[in-house]
């Protein structure tokens, strides 16, 4: 299967591409060629770095193209900042809107004694059955590195606890996101990417 990976010049795509290929995907990368998004079978929006970098998605027209692809039912996976972008926005860059697929805002971790960024392996608490986390057992560990996080809502597939519970994975229909990095999360991460690659629309979607 073919995966279109969006490059918005916020960090390094090598790890994501490598992991997707390991799971059997053919990968193509676009930093602005909208025809690749229009013909995409699956889309991955990786992301490390600052939420403000997503401005590039707007200026290149990728935001509209991705919105249309999602409406067509193309499976979409956002990773880290790529997941946060699915929300209305983030306090990291208040002037930069997100896609707004999920209505909530992403926020910085609350002040506490704990270190921020949240870096390292932390465990997943499964909130509801999801296709993205199919076969992932409660308590499996995944790798995080982030200072901002999405709130726990009805679409949250799994939560993780650090300072406060936050959305570690989100899923609604064909739109999925992980705050953690599946490409860096060993066997658990590869299983999750594999689930995304085998995602098929159900009859009623």
């Amino acid at each position, binding site marked *: 299967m073919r995966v279109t990976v969006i490059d918005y010049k916020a960090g*390094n795509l090598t790890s994501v591409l490598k992991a997707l290929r390991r799971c059997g995907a053919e990968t193509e990368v676009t930093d602005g060629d909208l025809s690749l998004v229009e013909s995409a079978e699956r889309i991955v929006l990786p992301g*490390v770095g*600052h939420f403000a970098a997503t401005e590039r998605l707007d200026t290149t027209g990728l935001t509209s193209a991705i919105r249309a692809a999602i409406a067509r039912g193309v499976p979409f996976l956002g990773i880290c900042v790529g997941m946060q972008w699915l929300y209305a926005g983030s306090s990291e860059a208040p002037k930069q809107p997100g896609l707004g697929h999920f209505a909530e805002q992403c926020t910085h971790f609350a002040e506490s004694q704990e270190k921020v960024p949240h*870096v*390292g*392996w932390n465990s997943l608490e499964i909130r509801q059955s999801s296709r993205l986390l199919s076969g992932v057992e409660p308590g499996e560990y995944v790798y995080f*590195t982030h200072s901002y996080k999405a709130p726990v809502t009805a679409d949250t597939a799994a939560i993780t606890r650090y300072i406060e519970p936050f959305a570690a994975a989100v899923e609604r229909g064909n739109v999925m996101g992980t705050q953690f990095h599946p490409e860096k999360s060993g066997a658990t991460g590869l299983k999750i990417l594999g689930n995304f690659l085998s995602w098929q629309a159900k009859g009623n979607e």
Partner: protein
Amino acid sequence: MITKRIIACLDVRDGRVVKGVQFVDIVDAGDPATQAARHARDGADEIVLLDITATHEGRSTLLDTVRRTAAVLFVPFCVGGGIRSAGDAAQVFEAGADKVSVNSAALKDPMLIDAIGHSFGAQAVVVAIDARRDPEAADPVRDAQVFVQGGRKPAGRRVVEWAREAEARGAGEILLTSMDSDGMRMGFDCELTAAVSESVGIPVIASGGAGTVEHFVDVFGRGKADAALAASIFHFGVSSARSLKEELAKAGVSVRLPC
């Protein structure tokens, strides 16, 4: 619950893993890609590859080594040694590293931290600090000094201050090596690690001196380390990250298990 990371460190020279005691008695410990994959399989939470190749020609060997190693790894992978510019860092990222560690080049030009962080994100920048206690100072720990050139030359900076500056410039983690303890297998410098960890808001990786499971329990407790680096303890079948973590779990340390 967030876990304490056990990071396997491979010192690499001219494309081969080597290990010495305080930078002498260097022995060949195998192929980096093979060793890295083995450590990941054996439960290491992260892999650090430190290139100690002294020569200029070694650069292309390093990139090839990084490429081959990254190809078999699906856990975080950090590369250090010889990164002198944002351009050097970009090549290493392109070859598949997730993080780079910078040391003497950042001391010479602290803006390097800002530059790499700006292009690749703070999570991708690890500032490595080689530290020695200052036995002459009133407080040998708080006044510990930064060293360069493999611990031979003082850099004229206090460790705690430099760690704070690195954080302010956008470093994502500090890799703190006690040159007094390194290679001795007598335990980490927990006082120094705690002093640095309490002074910054970013994770601190402790390095230098691991010899027993107790040493790790200590540095995660008293030393307030977020992660610990181990090189010699993993080589030559002395132990594995998995068995180390199983022992740590018994001692009440939160670690990623099963792994």
